Structure formats: structure tokens, C-alpha cells
């Protein structure tokens, strides 16, 4: 799970020799540095992940040619003859490192190659999977953020009040329910009995509501928890009490100070949750027949479709880097303090 130990930096009274009064918004300086560092990291990740991934796939048991033939011809029409023709066609008996070099060569010219099973271009297929996964993650995230932060804020308004205890119960219940069970309950309720929403499938807008809701329930618990803790802490902070005594009125204080500072902590948290979402939705995708990245990865590994595995792993890895960059930039934009404690993922 994620334990977030970022605390707003408390200033020692004697700030050793800081160059005072810089008017230029510090974020502009940091943006260039953040982008530079992340670009370097992305390049490193590309090489590291593809090598590690290729090594892992090679160590998988079972003959790759047979697996691909099963993927192509269907699971009960795969024969030794078809496997041999696949091995010859794809040159699978080449040494592993040669195949890897071919793949890397293709990568340099931005051609991810074709899927061994379907023959279609990996980029195309992966594009659809990535798009639908991101779409599902985005909708789930927005739903969770809306419900979670509102509940968290209301709970933090009265620490120890009924709403606060209610949120704590809601958090533990949502965290304890396995996602596929929650999905089944939602389908039974909304699709079968009420017939309001489609049970599974992809295509129209209505299809996204149930899978996104399944993900959002668990996630909203997490967000409520983080929002409540951070806001309760910020409400006790010196700058909120000073703002009060300036005669601002609680609504202005809430909007101008509490929300902004809570945002600083939330942003890092949301960044992490998006990654967990995209990787962890395999179950929800298979239950709702959603053509997501996790689902595609499971099939690719089952059929040993190497280019697809490599591309999917690469996409996920670059997503991790992109998400970290986004979080860094957003944090720098909201919180000008130079060195922020490293948010422990």
C-alpha cells in the first residue's frame, strides 16, 4: 500500500543563508530541472524495462511457437504442424539476444513491430487498449475525487463528529471489499434488477459507468482518508489560525488556504493512485469485458506474444515516468518551497 510521509516543511526560525526575496516564481526554474531529470529517467527506463521484460519472458516455461499457434488457430485446433510453421515464419529459433536486438532496432525507428498472434500492428492494438484503460482510470479518478474529497472535507470540518466516524467506516469497508465482488454486486443491482446500465461491454458511454464506479468506490475511501487527515492537520496549523484572526471569515480561509495546502498533499497521492489504478484494473476489465491494458497484458503473457508484452510493459513504464513528471510539475506549481521531502511511493 502507499504510506505518505510528506509533511508540510516546518521552518526552523533561523533559515541558514537563504537568498531572500526572489521575485521570480520558483516553479519556472524547477520545471526545466524536473523535465530534464525525467527525460533522462525515461530514456533509462526504456532500456531497463525492455531488457528486464525480455529476459523474464524468455524464462517463461512452455514453447513459444506452440503458444502463439494456440493464440492464432484457437485453443483446440493448435497442432505441432501449425506450431512448426509459426516457428519458421517468425524465426523463433533465432538466439534470444538476436531477437531482442531486432526488437530494439525496431524501437529506435519507433516501429513496435506486429503482434505475433494477430499480425496486426502492436501500436494500433495497444493504442486502443491504452486509450480505454486511461479513459476508465480518468472517469474512476474523477468520481473518486469528487466523492472522496467532499466526504473528507465534511469529515474534517467536525473531527470526531458522526460524519468523521462514518467516513472511517466507509474507508475500511471499501478497502476490504475485493474489487471483483464489488463489481458483481453493482452489475446485479444496476444491470440485472434495475436494468438501467449495461452489464458489460465497450462502445457506448453507458458502458463506462459501472466499471468506473467499481474502481471509484475503493478509491474514494482512500481519498476521503487522505483529505480528512490532511485537512484536520492544516486546520490546526498556524497560518490558518492567523488567517482567521485577520477577520477573513471561515469560507474565505477554507478556499484560500485550506484547499490549496491540502492540494499539495493530494496531488502526489493522486499521481500514485492513477498508476495503481491502471495496473490493478485487470480484474474489473475482465469482469466488464473492457479492452484495457491489464487485460491485454494477461492475454499477451498467456500467448507469449513478445512484441505485445514488450510494448505493453514499455507503455506502463513510460506512464509511470509521465505520471511522476506531472506530479512533480503540479506540486512545483502549487507549492514553491524548493526541496520537498521525497514522497515515499
Amino acid at each position, binding site marked *: *500500500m*502507499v*504510506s*505518505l*510521509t510528506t509533511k508540510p516543511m516546518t521552518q526552523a526560525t533561523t533559515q541558514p543563508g537563504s537568498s531572500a526575496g526572489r521575485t521570480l516564481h520558483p516553479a519556472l526554474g524547477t520545471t526545466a530541472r524536473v523535465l530534464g531529470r525525467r527525460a533522462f*529517467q525515461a530514456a*533509462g*527506463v526504456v532500456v*531497463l*524495462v525492455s531488457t*528486464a*521484460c525480455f529476459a*523474464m*519472458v524468455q*524464462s*517463461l*516455461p512452455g514453447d513459444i511457437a506452440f503458444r502463439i499457434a494456440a493464440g492464432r488457430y484457437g485453443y483446440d485446433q493448435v497442432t505441432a504442424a501449425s506450431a512448426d510453421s509459426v516457428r519458421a515464419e517468425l524465426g523463433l529459433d533465432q538466439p534470444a539476444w538476436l531477437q531482442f536486438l531486432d526488437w530494439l532496432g525496431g524501437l529506435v525507428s519507433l516501429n513496435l513491430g506486429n503482434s505475433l498472434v494477430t499480425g496486426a500492428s502492436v501500436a494500433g492494438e495497444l493504442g486502443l487498449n491504452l486509450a480505454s484503460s486511461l479513459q476508465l482510470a480518468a472517469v474512476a479518478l474523477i468520481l473518486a475525487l469528487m466523492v472522496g474529497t467532499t466526504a473528507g472535507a465534511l469529515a474534517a470540518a467536525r473531527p470526531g463528529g458522526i460524519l468523521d466516524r462514518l467516513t472511517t467506516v466507509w*474507508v*475500511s*469497508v471499501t*478497502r*476490504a*471489499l*475485493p*474489487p*471483483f*465482488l464489488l463489481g*458483481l454486486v453493482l452489475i446485479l443491482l444496476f444491470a440485472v434488477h434495475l436494468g438501467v446500465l449495461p452489464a458489460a461491454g465497450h462502445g457506448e458511454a453507458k458502458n463506462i459507468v459501472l466499471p468506473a464506479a467499481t474502481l471509484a468506490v475503493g478509491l474514494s475511501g*482512500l481519498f476521503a*482518508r*487522505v483529505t480528512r*487527515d490532511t485537512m484536520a492537520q492544516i486546520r*490546526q496549523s*498556524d497560518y490558518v*489560525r*492567523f488567517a482567521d484572526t485577520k477577520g477573513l471569515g471561515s469560507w474565505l480561509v477554507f478556499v484560500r488556504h485550506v484547499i490549496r495546502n491540502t492540494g499539495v498533499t493530494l496531488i502526489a497521492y493522486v499521481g500514485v493512485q492513477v498508476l495503481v489504478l491502471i*495496473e*490493478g484494473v*485487470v*480484474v474489473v476489465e*475482465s469482469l466488464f469485458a473492457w479492452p484495457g491494458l*491489464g487485460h491485454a*497484458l*494477461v492475454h499477451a*503473457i*498467456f500467448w507469449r506474444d513478445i512484441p505485445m*508484452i514488450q510494448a*505493453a*510493459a514499455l507503455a*506502463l*513504464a513510460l506512464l*509511470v*515516468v509521465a505520471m511522476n513528471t506531472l506530479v512533480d510539475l503540479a506540486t512545483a506549481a502549487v507549492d514553491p518551497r524548493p526541496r520537498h*521531502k*521525497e514522497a*515515499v*511511493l
Partner: protein
Amino acid sequence: MTNAVAMQELLPASAGDSKRPKWLANRSATQLVSAGLLAVLVIFAVAGPLIWPGHAVQDLSRFLEAPGAGEPLGRDHLGRSVIARLAHATQLSLVMSVLCVSAALLFGSLAGIAAAWRGGWIDSVLHGLSEVFIALPALLVVLVVSAIANGDLWTLCLGLALAQWVEYFRMVRARSGLVLAGPAVEAAGLFQLGPVHVIRRHLLPELRPLLTTMATFGVGSSILALSTLGFVGIGVRPPTPELGLMITEAFPFYHEAPWMALAPVLVLTTILIGLLGLRSKESPA
């Protein structure tokens, strides 16, 4: 003006009332209830398999038999005793998750302390390794390892541990870095107090509460990960019972034999709620 200062003036530090033993003193009600729940489950996991040994014994003529005298939880679609399978499954899930969490925790913490303490090339190597694991999608690592495991328990356990060690590593490295750079350790250095003292007095007491919190979460998420593998169909090999697999098998019978699905779900949810409740109030989310 700050509340803290005002309060400090009022209440000089109290040493905690001596009535209740020290470890009970500062445990909230929810923590006690959760600990109770978990204790019941552990007893069930240990005693259950002894009371109902035959989890693989089938009686196809009595498939989906309702709970009755002989079978408190009835029989599943293969006529096997659901309570026996549940007991073995709970035992397996708990043992597996505890094992893989302790492996992840041990390796992660040792690596973290080594990186923070030695610094230099060890730190960059270990940090680089953790960056790779962070970048490598955890999903891929678990899927690949469970494909290699092909149902074998120990390799599955290794896979889950591999996916989790990075969390412990990063936390321990960051937190020990802070402690080791702090004045307390500097002062200890001036007293020529060696590494044993630093670890025993400075690092462990600081890391222990955080590690226990992360560990309780780790056990919960490992059980969920194991059950997800079962759901996607690459989990443990038949006839080994596992909570996730039982829920997946019971999935189609939710209408016909609800008890078959309810039992594992109840156990799984109780374990997770118990673990969540154990977390002390002020530790992070």
C-alpha cells in the same frame, strides 16, 4: 498563540496511568476489536484443518448440498466440504501472505538501511534497482512470475514479495537517511558509540511503527493480489484451496448456493478489516 504551546503550558508530560499494562494502555477500542477478530481467524486457520481434514474429498452425488448437521457450511459444486476448504484456504492465504510480506520487509529494510548507511555506489546500485522495479509494472512482474510458478506456491510467494519490496526499501532508506543525518546520531558518534548502538537505539525504534503499519497493509494487499490471480485463472493449482480461487469458483453459484460464495468473502473481508483496524490512529493512511 499556537494551540500546542498553550497546551504544553498546561499539562506537564504525564507518564501514562499505571493501571493497565503498558502495551494495552495506548491501544484504541477499534484496535482491540480488530486484534480479537484476527485472533479468531488465526485459531480457525490453525484448528480448522485439524477438525475438518478432508478438503479434497469429493462426493459428487451431494453437490451443492445446503449447510446441515454434518456440514456447517454445506458442500460445493464438487461435493467437497466447504468448511474444510475454507479452513485450509484461510491457512494457506495467511501463511503465504505473511511469508511474502516478511520476505519483502526483510529484504527491503536491509537494503534500505545499507543504502542509507553506506551511501556511495551501494546506494546508487540499490536505488537504481528500485527505480527499475518501480518502472516495471508490478502487474507484469506478478503475472510473469505466476506464469513461471505454474501454480507452485513458493514461486507465487516470491513473485508477490518481488512486487512489494520496493515500498519498504524506499521508506526505510528515506527515514534512516533522516535519522542518520540527525543530531542524535552525530552526538552518538562523538561518544564513539558503534553501529550496534545506532541501529538498536536510533534506527529500529524509529522504523518499527512504520514497518508494522506497512506490513499490516502488505498482508492485506497480498491476500487480495493472490485472490486476483485466482480470479484471472493463473493462481494456485487444483485441488489446493485458496480464498480468491474459492470466490471465483463460487462466482457462478451465487444464485443457487449463496453460502458457498459468502463464506470465503466473509473471511477475506474480516481479515482485511481486522488488518486495517490494527493500524494505530496517527500513522499515515
